[in-house]
């Protein structure tokens, strides 16, 4: 893959601490994200993955280090949790219309996320987990971002739909030329779709190509002494001791 000289995002020695705590939530994190690249961030619960994304967006102040975004970059972000009030009277079309500067028509965006024809008229509160995720994906790409930050994109989606969401993301990456930073628990997905992986457990335990970097030892260091990893596509389990 051809890479531009200046990355879309360059992070050097990033550290984050909360309040007066001397124990950092993130410590000496460094990585780059280039055009068209997919970077996966993996790590156990509470390892600082969501904190990292929020720090990149400026919502959490950094204690040390540098976060350098490419000039005039357009960033898309989808959070880990998106709660919709069950009584919210709002259609998908109305929700997407809240976007400040959309670059596609509603019809185009529906086609891009491969949504059914009645999707735009559906009530946001009545969507299935997969439909809601497609709606959020449509929201994120509606203003044609250069890079998408996704915090566990399939957390509220059933197993059958998880693979299709990742396949759609991968396809959008090719179609739109967008770079991806994805927090994921699914190591099988990381092997298949990510160009680079960053293993996070407050410290940066690994960074590089998944096939070379995600060794059994790295995964054991990351998740503990016994780790079972399921690959949805091959339906194989990787039992790591």
């Amino acid at each position: 893959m051809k890479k531009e000289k200046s990355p879309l995002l360059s992070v050097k020695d990033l550290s984050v601490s909360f309040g007066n705590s001397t124990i950092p939530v993130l410590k000496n994190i460094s990585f780059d994200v280039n055009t068209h690249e997919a970077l996966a961030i993996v790590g156990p619960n509470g390892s600082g993955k969501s904190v990292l994304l929020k720090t990149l967006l400026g919502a959490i102040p950094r204690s040390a280090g540098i976060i350098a975004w490419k000039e005039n970059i357009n960033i898309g972000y989808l959070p880990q949790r998106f709660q919709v009030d069950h009584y919210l009277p709002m259609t998908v079309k109305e929700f997407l219309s809240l976007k400040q500067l959309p670059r596609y028509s509603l019809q185009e965006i529906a086609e891009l996320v491969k949504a059914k024809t009645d999707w735009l008229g559906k009530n946001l509160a009545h969507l299935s987990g997969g439909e809601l995720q497609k709606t959020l994906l449509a929201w994120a790409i509606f203003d044609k971002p250069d890079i998408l930050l996704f915090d566990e994109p399939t957390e509220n989606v059933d197993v059958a739909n998880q693979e299709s969401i990742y396949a759609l993301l991968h396809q959008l990456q090719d179609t739109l030329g967008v770079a991806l930073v994805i927090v994921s628990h699914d190591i099988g997905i990381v092997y298949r779709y990510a160009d680079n992986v960053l293993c996070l457990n407050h410290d940066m335990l690994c960074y590089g190509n998944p096939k070379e970097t995600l060794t059994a030892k790295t995964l054991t260091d990351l998740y503990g002494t016994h780790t079972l990893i399921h690959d949805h596509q091959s339906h194989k389990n990787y039992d790591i001791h």
Partner: protein
Amino acid sequence: MTFTDTNTLLLVVSGVCVAAASGLIGSFLILRRMTLLSDALSHVALPGIALGVIFKFEPLVGGLLFLFLSIFLIWGIEHRTKLAIESITGVLFVTALAVGSLLIEEHDLLEAFFGNVETISSARAVIQTVLAIIVLVVTTLFFKRLVLVSVAPELTLAEKIRPSRMELLLLTLIALTISIGISFVGVLLMSALTIIPAATARNISKNLKGYISLSIIFAIIGLIGGIFIAKTYAINSGVATVLISTSLFIVSLFWKRD
């Protein structure tokens, strides 16, 4: 009551504008689950109204000043302590109620509590109309951002929207709306103009456009009906507005929106 009388006509025009602003802001209060905020915040206006009565200046101005003072206090305390807005409002509103009750005489206190259309001068009606139009225009200008911050604050991170600024703007609009509504319905019954119409609209609406439009329409029906009853049957306008709004709410409970 005849609408040919200039003062009454001015009162009705003011009522329509104030109710429209209240219905619009009320719909945001429901979306943000801040339903008790306007009710509690309206009490904060009481010391300002009392100072207006004592020092012979427009009580609406006094109420507005106290409301602005309190929203900056609420916003400042929330950002320093991370206490919920409603908790801080809870502290402020009982304090303001106690101070206001100390300052104001019983007759004026009842009027401040329940409103009285008879005491709304033409000048006050004009001020209320202008402020209501300001609320409607500003809310329309910031509509997309205010809705997004209300329903999906998590999504604002990458949208170049500062949620805290939108929160301050919404609090300011709430304060303005309360200050112009309390002459009609009083500090105790303000939710008749904000929460009840929005809750009624939500019961029967399928989409955002319908929800906000109906919230405004129900607020207008409630307030203009209240003014009409107050003028015709010598019943307090605040009480009449509450009863009309509540009747609409009860009907909406039997309405199936799906």
